[in-house]
C-alpha cells in the first residue's frame, strides 16, 4: 500500500507568524488612535517603501529583470493622479486606481522595446526610459513644466474635510497598498505563474523546453509591476500634495533607496524587502542629521552586504535557521512523522 503522504507548504512557524501578523495588522490599522500625526506620516511612508521594494524584488529577484528605471512609473503614476484630478475632476482616491490602469497601458509597449536589451544593459535602458518621462513631463506647461505644480486646495479638501481625517484616510490607503502589494506577490508566487517564474530563474533554457513562454511571463510581470508601482507613485504624491519632474522621476529616491532596501533585507525572499525597509527607516531616522554622509554609509552598507552576505539579512537568517514566514516551497509530509 502506498504510504499516505500529503503535500504541504505551511510550516508551524509560518502558521504562528500568520496569527501574530494579524494581531500586528490590527494594531497598525488602529494607529490613528494611538499615535500622532508625525508617526502616522512616517508609517505611511514606510508602507509605500515596503510596496516599492517588494515590487522591485519581484522584478529583479524573481523575474530576473533588474531595472534601475522604476522611478518612471512612480513619477508617471503621480502625474496621472495630478492630471486626472486637476483637469478631469476625478476624485483623487479613485485616480490612484486610474494611475494603475494607465501605468499598465504605458508599460505594455515599453516592455518589448526594453527586452531587446539584456542584463545590465536592460537596467540602463530602463533608466533612459525614465529620463524620457522626466524630460517629457518637464515640457508639459499645464502641469507646471520643469518646476512642477501643487494640488489645488479645493481638491485637497475634497478628499476629506479636515486635516486629521485626510491623514487618517491616506494612512489607511498606504497600509492597504503596502499590504495588498505583499499579499499579491505572495499569492502570485504560490500560483502556477510563480512556479514558472522560479523555473525561469533557475534555467531559462530548461524552462523553455518545458513549454513555459518566457517572453509572456516576463511581460506579464513587468506590466503588473508597472501598474502597482504607478499606484504607489500616485499615493506618494497625493501624500506630498506637490509634484515636479525632478522629484517624481528621482533615481535616488525611488530606485537607489529601494534597491538598497531589497539588497540589505534579502533579495529573492518575500520577507527581505520588509526587513530591509525597517532597517532603512531606522538608519534614516537615526543618521539623517549626518546629511550626505548618511548616503555614503548607506552605499557602503549595501556594498558590504552584497560582498559578504549576498543573501541579505533575512536571507542569511533564514538560511541558518530554516525559518520562513511566507513559505513558497511544496514539501512532502509523512503523516506518521508528525
Amino acid at each position, binding site marked *: 500500500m502506498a504510504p499516505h503522504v500529503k503535500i504541504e507548504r505551511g510550516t508551524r512557524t509560518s502558521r504562528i507568524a500568520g496569527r501574530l501578523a494579524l494581531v500586528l495588522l490590527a494594531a497598525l490599522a488602529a494607529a490613528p488612535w494611538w499615535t500622532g500625526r508625525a508617526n502616522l506620516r512616517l508609517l505611511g511612508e514606510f508602507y509605500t517603501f515596503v510596496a516599492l521594494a517588494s515590487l522591485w524584488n519581484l522584478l*529583479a529577484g524573481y523575474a*530576473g529583470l*533588474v531595472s*534601475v528605471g522604476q522611478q518612471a512609473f512612480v513619477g508617471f503614476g503621480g502625474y496621472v493622479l495630478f492630471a486626472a484630478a486637476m483637469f478631469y475632476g476625478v476624485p483623487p482616491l479613485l485616480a490612484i486606481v486610474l494611475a494603475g490602469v494607465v501605468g499598465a497601458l504605458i508599460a505594455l509597449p515599453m516592455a518589448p*522595446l526594453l527586452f*531587446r*536589451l539584456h*542584463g*545590465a*544593459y536592460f*537596467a*540602463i*535602458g530602463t*533608466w*533612459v*526610459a525614465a*529620463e*524620457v518621462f522626466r*524630460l*517629457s513631463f*518637464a*515640457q508639459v506647461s499645464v502641469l507646471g513644466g520643469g518646476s512642477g505644480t501643487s494640488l489645488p486646495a479645493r481638491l485637497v479638501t475634497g478628499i476629506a474635510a479636515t486635516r486629521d481625517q485626510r491623514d487618517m484616510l491616506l494612512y489607511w490607503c498606504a497600509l492597504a497598498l503596502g499590504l495588498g502589494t505583499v499579499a499579491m506577490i505572495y499569492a502570485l508566487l504560490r500560483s502556477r505563474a510563480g512556479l514558472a517564474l522560479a523555473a525561469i530563474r533557475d534555467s531559462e533554457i530548461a524552462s523553455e523546453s518545458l513549454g513555459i513562454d518566457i517572453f509572456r511571463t516576463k511581460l506579464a510581470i513587468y506590466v503588473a509591476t508597472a501598474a502597482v508601482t504607478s499606484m504607489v507613485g500616485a499615493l506618494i504624491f497625493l501624500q506630498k500634495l506637490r509634484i515636479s519632474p525632478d522629484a517624481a522621476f528621482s*533615481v*535616488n529616491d525611488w530606485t*537607489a533607496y529601494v*534597491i*538598497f532596501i531589497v*539588497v540589505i533585507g534579502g*533579495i529573492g525572499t518575500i520577507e527581505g524587502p520588509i526587513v530591509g525597509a525597517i532597517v532603512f527607516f531606522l538608519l534614516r531616522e537615526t543618521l539623517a542629521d549626518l*546629511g*550626505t*554622509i548618511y*548616503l*555614503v554609509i*548607506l*552605499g*557602503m552598507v*549595501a*556594498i558590504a552586504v*552584497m*560582498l559578504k552576505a*549576498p543573501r541579505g539579512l533575512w536571507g542569511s537568517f533564514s538560511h541558518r535557521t530554516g525559518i520562513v514566514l511566507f513559505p513558497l516551497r511544496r514539501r512532502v509530509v509523512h503523516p506518521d512523522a508528525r
Partner: protein
Amino acid sequence: MEILNALIQGVLLGGLYALFAAGLSLIFGVMRLVNIAHGDLIVLSAYLALVVVQATGLHPFVAALAVVPLMALTGYVLQRVLLNPTLGRDLLSPLLVTFGLSIIIQNALLTHFTADSRRLAAGPIETASLGIGGGLSIGLLPLAMFLAAVAVIVALEFVFSRTSLGRAFRATSDDAEIAQLMGLDRRHVYAMAMALSAAIIAIAGVFLAVRTNFDPSTGPLRLIFGFEAVIIGGLGSLWGTLAGGVVLGVAQALGAQIDPGYQVLAGHIVFFLILVVRPRGLFPRMD
C-alpha cells in the same frame, strides 16, 4: 547654414561621447561588466583635475598627466578589491556594487566640494576656432576632443591586436577559465582592463571639465550618454562606438536647434528609434 553648423558641432560633440563610451565598451568586452559608476568616475576625474590645477597652477591638459595615472591606479585597486569578488556570481552583484559605488562617489564629492558647479579654464583654446569657409568655423577645443577620441580608439585597437596585454584581454574574454589554465591571472587581467578604462575615464573627465560646468550630480547622465553611444554603435565595436557617439551628438545638436529643452530628449529618442529598427546597433560585432 545654422543646421550645417549644428551638424558640425554635433559630430565633434560625438567625440566626447565616444570618450565616455570607450571605457564602458572596453570592460564590457573583457569581463561583461557594466559599471554603473562610470559617469561618476568621469566626474571624479574632473574634480581631481580641478584639485591638481588649483594646487599647481598647471594648464588642465598638463594636469591630465597626473590625473590619468592616478585614475588608472584607482581603477586597478577598485577592480581587485571590490569588483573581482562579484564577477562570475550573477548579473546582480556587480551591478549593485557599482550602483552603491555611484551613490558613494556622488555624496562624497557633495560633502567635500558642495553642490556648486565648477569649470576648468583652459585659456585661449576655449574660444579659438578654425574658419572652414562659408561662414562656418570649427572650435579648436571640440576638434581637440574629437581627435583625442580618435586617438584613444586607435590606441585601444593597437593594444587589443598587437600587444600581449591585448592578447590576454581577448583570451580572457573568449574563455576566462581556459585563459587561467594557460597561466593568465584572471584577477590581474581584469584589473588591468579596469585600469585602462579608468585612464580613458580620466581623459574624458579632463575634457568634460574644460568643456562644461560640472557638479557632483552630473555623473549619471554621462553614463547614460556613454551607454547610448555603445548601444547605437553596436556592442563590441570600438569604431562603432565612435559612430554611436557621433549619431548621439548630432541628434542632440539638432534637438537643441528646435528648443534647448529638447537637446537631451532628442538623443534619447534617437537611441530608442535605433533600438526599434536595429536592435543590435549600427555596427554589431558581439552577441
